[in-house]
């Protein structure tokens, strides 16, 4: 039976605590008697027979939906959309959940004699998936059956001929959708719900939409009013998507939603990375030797080689649940399973929140974690992994550990380079950035061209990354980055520190000398249930 997550009160006998630090690690001693560490739950048991579970879910849907086989018939137009490269994190070992689910769906479609089938990577404004990434996600059989005929495509949010406007929400939000998906007799959406933010109407209303739709909820106001965007019932981001879902329900295609949850087995229970998933006082002599060797070995390598090693890691995630049917009913069941893995009860807020940021976030798979993504991972994702209240009090301090290199992937993140060099050089104020710069980046023809024909994120994407941290920026009194590139950290508007001790000293200017400290031991992923 896996142990649940828990909160450790740090005393003098507590061993040094592991901080992820990009493609490296730090061991840090936290101040005794005023610090605590939140540990994630151990990985939940995997479904013993995942393929059978998928089949059962498709044949026994939840909510107001007939079983999938009853929705399939010869002569129909079927579209299967699926989550893109940003999920799961890190990418999982083969077979990917998407492959398992899509093979099961296609097998039923084959049984019904469906000819007209297309598969779409629902990537919104993310970069297109490469053939090898698609092959990894869908498996050789699906890829070889559809890609050569042009029936497996990446969604293109900048192709006016391939988009259709479905209507407008009560709040005046335009709902635009991929034409093939919108004009299908049935749209099957295959989700990987890594965190509670994923899934629901966000899958179709965001994944298959365009900038015209996305700008209604990917903005500073929405993100500041999402407290947090990981808590669907208190997230303005989700409220907007749910409103769009109503329009899709009334004017769009019939949707059969499939959502899957996975355990947080990120580093495995065996092998060189397994130590990263253990609690520090349980490290054996072998763990300590392997950790030291790994850390020292990584220090000897170039940044590119370190990145190559980490990006090649495929996590042994396993599926813990699968449910299918009507979008909202499915998503409520999914949330229960996600929370069962991630939620850790925490009492009270803290003055200083510390976090070690790992090498990966949703937008740098097989790529480089540039400074904007560091900000987005820390202030966007990690800060928002709470339910109830933020872990850190209003006006508190956030200390993040990451090398924050002044480095960008020129193919994947071209607009990030200009955002960092031009926009952040002028201002870091999110409102001003949104007002003055967003439109020109979003409508820039060169970025459009790169998004559509190369493997670049959309021109507006770095803005969204900045907005992702809006709630944290509005909430925090100071942000300090330990061990980061000093110039890059300052460009972000944060304060650099060489060591955690220095950072705590700097934080004391804001929150006093006896401030409480809380460290989130993430990854593996956890979500604080703060009361």
């Amino acid at each position, binding site marked *: 039976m896996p142990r649940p997550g828990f909160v450790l009160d740090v005393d003098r006998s507590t061993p040094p605590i592991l901080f992820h630090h990009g493609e490296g690690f730090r061991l840090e001693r936290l101040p005794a008697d005023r610090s605590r560490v939140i540990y994630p739950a151990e990985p939940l048991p995997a479904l013993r027979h995942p393929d059978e579970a998928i089949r059962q879910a498709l044949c026994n849907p939840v909510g107001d939906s007939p079983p999938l086989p009853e929705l399939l018939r010869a002569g129909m137009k079927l579209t299967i959309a699926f989550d893109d490269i940003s999920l799961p994190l890190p990418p999982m070992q083969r077979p990917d959940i998407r492959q398992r689910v899509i093979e099961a769906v296609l097998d039923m479609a084959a*049984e019904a004699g469906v000819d007209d089938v297309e598969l779409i990577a629902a990537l919104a404004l993310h970069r297109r998936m490469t053939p090898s990434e698609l092959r990894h996600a869908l498996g050789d059989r*699906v890829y*070889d059956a*559809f890609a050569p005929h042009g029936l497996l495509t990446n969604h293109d949010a900048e192709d006016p001929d391939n988009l259709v406007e479905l209507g407008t929400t009560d709040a005046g939000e335009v709902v635009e959708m991929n034409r093939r998906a919108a004009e299908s007799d049935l749209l099957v959406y295959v989700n990987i719900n890594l965190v509670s933010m994923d899934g629901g109407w966000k899958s179709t209303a965001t994944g298959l939409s365009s900038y015209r739709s996305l700008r209604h909820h990917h903005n500073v106001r929405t993100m500041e009013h999402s407290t947090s965007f990981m808590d669907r019932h208190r997230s303005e981001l989700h409220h907007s998507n749910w409103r769009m879902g109503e329009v899709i329900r009334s004017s769009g295609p019939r949707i059969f939603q499939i959502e899957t949850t996975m355990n947080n087995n990120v580093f495995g229970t065996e092998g060189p990375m397994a130590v990263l998933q253990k609690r520090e006082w349980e490290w054996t002599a072998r763990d300590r030797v392997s950790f030291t060797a790994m850390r020292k070995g990584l220090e000897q390598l170039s940044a590119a080689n370190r990145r190559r090693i980490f990006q090649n890691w495929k996590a042994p995630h396993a599926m813990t649940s699968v449910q299918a049917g009507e979008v909202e009913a499915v998503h409520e069941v999914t949330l229960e399973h996600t929370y069962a893995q991630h939620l850790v009860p925490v009492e009270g807020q803290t003055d200083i929140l510390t976090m070690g940021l790992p090498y990966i976030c949703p937008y740098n798979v097989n790529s480089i974690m540039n400074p904007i993504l560091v900000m987005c991972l820390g202030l966007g994702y990690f800060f928002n992994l709470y339910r109830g209240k933020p872990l850190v009090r209003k006006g508190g301090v956030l200390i993040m550990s990451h090398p924050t290199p002044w480095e960008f992937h020129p193919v994947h993140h071209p607009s990030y380079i200009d955002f960092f060099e031009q926009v952040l050089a002028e201002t870091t104020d999110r409102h001003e950035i949104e007002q003055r710069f967003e439109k020109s980046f979003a409508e820039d023809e060169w970025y459009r061209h790169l998004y559509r024909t190369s493997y670049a994120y959309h021109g507006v994407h770095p803005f969204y990354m900045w907005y992702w941290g809006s709630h944290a920026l509005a909430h925090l009194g100071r942000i300090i980055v330990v061990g980061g590139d000093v110039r890059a950290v300052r460009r972000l508007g944060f304060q650099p520190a060489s060591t955690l001790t220095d950072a705590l000293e700097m934080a004391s200017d804001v929150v006093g000398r006896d401030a409480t400290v809380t460290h989130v031991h993430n990854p593996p992923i956890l979500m604080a249930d703060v009361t």
Partner: protein
Amino acid sequence: MSGRHGAERNRLPVNGRALATTAKAVAPAMMARAKQSVRAALPDGLAPPTMPGGIEPPPSRRSVGIDYDTDWARTYPARLARVVLLEGMVRPGVTALARPTVRGLDRLDDLDGPAIFAANHHSHLDTPLLGTTIPDPWRHRLVIGAAADYFFGNRLTAPLSALVVGAIPIERQKVSRRSADEAAALIDDGWSFLIFPEGGRSPDGWGQPFRGGAAYLSLRCEVPVVPIHIEGTGRILRKGRSLPKPSPTTITFGTPLHPRTDEDSRRFASRLEREVAALADESRTDWYEARRRAHAGATPPLQGPEVGAWRRTWDLGDRSPRRKRRARWPEL
């Protein structure tokens, strides 16, 4: 000069068949004389006893064929030797000859414990090819059902078959409880089993009907059967040919099959054959096409079309990846 005349000119001035007949006739006498010499050379007590006159000698126990004892080939030293032979000699040879493309291994991800691997059979190369392709952990605890009359027919091939590929003798001329008992005992002991349910290599490039052995063992031992389709080994070393010709091959692993509650071994064998046929279809076309045909009951059978012999051969010819698709006459 034609090839035939050339071959005749190079033939040795020895009649091989006459030589073999003579050797067969004189061998027992020579063996008896050798035994006599040994007996004479040894002191009493050590020399093997002679048979008294008037006593009927007990029937000699056969030590080859179906009676060959292969227990020694599953001891640790023998397994170690097999790994060395497979990895050091067999794998490079197979890779050079067959250049295998392996598909569908992910279908075995949820497979736990021993299994029966059942494949179509075109060539002697199938066994070493699968012996090096079936993944861990099954590969190193794998026994192979091999024809007792062919592979265990004499004292040279029997130990070689047992050692190199981990074969056990299977009676294929008649139904044998002994073969089944031995295979079942090994499966119960945690060994996986590779079997070619067609019972022999394809005589014409098309498949043959599946026999019930694999299905029977699966029902008896309650282990799944993994269908496998091998494509291309017939081009390398088909039945009747003695020299191999390199050519690419494709091995497609299918989803492990469990017998259904209402299935006997005959019906299960027929489902297994359909699954292998569907894998054949998948390797020729694509997965979705193959699934559609499988569900519609329109998967092309392994045995090929029921037409005249020349048309079967004609249909077979286009499968070679090296051979370009020729326009059929008449082109309409």
